[in-house]
């Protein structure tokens, strides 16, 4: 720092050290101590993956599929490779190891080979001296597609004769939950409500779009600095694609600008590593917001049919449901998200009889994967709708009805698992009752307010 700059800083407004820093924090558990990472963040000094640079660094850029389902008849990279400053234009053929990855099951191509399955699937990747050349090169890659019939909805995807997204069929996973006797449960019910619920896809929209930086160090280790929720899984997957021993790949997480589930999956890591390995130069690959939204995962859209019964005393007797989850073109965590949804479709309540089925179905839509809430959020739209409607039909207070039916220590979940003392649902509902009293709130009151 220059002398001038130091002088300038002295002149600046200062309030001194923040309150929380002044204390000596013995026994910090239960105290709101100041975050370890906050000073770099408020001063702009924290280094995110997209902030990295090195002498000789190249800029990466990806070409995404424009077709939802098509055969690739040919890729012409000659014009792209001829753009001044372009150092690499890579397609599936250039992958040294296996062209495959996947968080749970490896069903996804790093770069599309012969076939694309969604709009936004990476087809080629470029490294160039600057962003301008990289963009130009990507725009000059010519891909010849032969469109195939496609499927865009999980219910259609299950119909006989539906176009197949993967050869093994469109059902990624079918979860069955069976507890008690569902017929008997509904026989005992005096009120039954049955509905269809639908939840839309949601984008995680972390403020930091996906970014990665890769270079080869003096020992020949391939380094990837990135924004990831699991560096070790990224390392495993990079090694397989690059045909390297796993201990010759290092993945380190930089300061992350949010993840919310999306960065649990591989994002830029394999592509940027591939570019660095092929060019021998440091490479930075940062997705634009639009690219990130097209190519990364999102929250599963779901379609649910469910019926729920309660007896005259206001106790739940049975629930039956079926879930169709759209997992998009590749599995990501689509098995487990939609499985978890089937288990949690009833919510935090005790059902002596419970039956649910969930289908996680491939389509030619964008990929849906893990997102804060992980299927349970979609399930909650159903179970809280059902519970509220039952309370209304029974003429019961919605909170009382929930308290009457919620799980307690000793009662069992949909899987038969018995709840322990750490079963807090009653406590949170009671906290809301108390809150309503404190704030003078009631479910019954004039709804209309003067405009």
């Amino acid at each position, binding site marked *: 720092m220059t002398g001038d700059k130091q002088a300038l800083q002295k*002149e600046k407004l200062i309030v001194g050290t*923040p309150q929380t820093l002044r204390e000596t924090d013995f026994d910090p558990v239960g105290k709101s101590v100041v975050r370890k990472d906050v*000073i770099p963040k*408020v001063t702009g000094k924290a280094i995110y993956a997209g902030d990295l640079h090195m002498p000789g660094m190249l800029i990466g850029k990806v070409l995404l599929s424009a077709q939802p389902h098509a055969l690739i008849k040919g890729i012409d990279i000659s014009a792209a490779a001829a753009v001044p400053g372009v150092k690499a234009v890579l397609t599936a053929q250039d992958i040294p190891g296996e062209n495959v990855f996947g968080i749970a099951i490896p069903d996804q191509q790093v770069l599309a080979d012969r076939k694309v399955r969604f709009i936004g699937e990476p087809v080629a990747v470029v490294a160039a001296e600057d962003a301008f050349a990289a963009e130009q090169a990507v725009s000059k890659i010519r891909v010849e597609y032969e469109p195939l019939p496609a499927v865009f909805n999980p219910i259609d995807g299950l119909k006989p004769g539906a176009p197949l997204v993967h050869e093994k069929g469109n059902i990624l996973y079918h979860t069955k939950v069976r507890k008690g006797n569902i017929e008997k449960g509904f026989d005992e019910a005096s009120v039954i409500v049955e509905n269809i619920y639908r939840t839309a896809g949601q984008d995680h929209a972390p403020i*930091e779009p996906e970014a990665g930086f890769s270079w080869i160090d003096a020992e020949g280790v391939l380094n990837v600095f990135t924004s990831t929720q699991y560096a070790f899984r990224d390392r495993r997957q990079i090694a397989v694609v690059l045909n390297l021993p796993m201990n010759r790949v290092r993945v380190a997480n930089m300061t992350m600008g949010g993840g919310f589930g999306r960065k649990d999956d591989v994002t830029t890591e394999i592509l940027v590593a591939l570019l660095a390995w092929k060019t021998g130069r440091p490479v930075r690959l940062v997705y634009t*917001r639009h690219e990130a939204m097209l190519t990364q995962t999102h929250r599963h859209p779901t379609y649910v049919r469910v019926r729920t019964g309660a007896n005259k005393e206001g106790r739940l007797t049975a629930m039956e449901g079926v879930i169709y989850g759209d997992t998009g073109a590749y599995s990501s965590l689509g098995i487990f998200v939609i499985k978890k949804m089937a288990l949690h479709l009833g919510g935090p309540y005790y059902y002596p009889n419970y039956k649910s089925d969930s289908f996680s179905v491939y389509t030619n839509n964008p990929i849906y994967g893990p997102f804060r809430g992980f299927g349970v959020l979609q399930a909650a739209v159903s179970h809280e709708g059902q519970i509220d409607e039952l309370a209304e039909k029974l003429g019961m207070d919605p909170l009382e009805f929930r308290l009457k039916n919620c799980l307690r220590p000793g009662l069992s979940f949909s899987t038969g698992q018995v709840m322990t003392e750490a079963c807090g649902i009653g406590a949170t509902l009671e906290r809301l009752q108390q809150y309503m009293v404190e704030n003078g709130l009631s479910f019954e009151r004039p709804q209309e307010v003067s405009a």
Partner: protein
Amino acid sequence: MDENNLVKMTLTVNGEEVSMMAKGGRRLLDFLRDDLHLTGSKEGCGEGECGSCTVLLDGHSVLSCLTPMERAIGRSVVTIEGVGSPTNLHPVQAALLDEGGVQCGMCTPGMVISAIDLLQRNPDPTVEEIIEGISGNLCRCTGYKKIIFGIQHAAEELRSSGRTGMVKEATR
């Protein structure tokens, strides 16, 4: 690189004179991040929607992703790097820290700059005015509440110590 496209960038950045030849036709955000390596200003969207690239240009907040770099010639730019230092936090930074208004931190630089812009125009903002002042800055982590309270506390701190016109000082 097109040699004809070089422009002479003469301006003040965080109080320091900058004078250099640079490739023109880019955004101010690129010039700051790629040429000056001031990476505190972030790119969340590149289309004027998220506010994470906000900087002060002659004391007023602008979105550097929508500002051609040439527009900064002869003017003064302040980025988050020019606002405070770890041992010398600006009241807005200190208040965000104290209040818990920082999670991933990606929105924070833009948020701090927008707050400073607001407080220099309006040293005693209401909550509604603070909300309006940062409504162009997206945050996906915090739910905004702790940021809003933080800015309110920073305003109190500044008023109680009789200081206003921060930007003039910060960009002198």
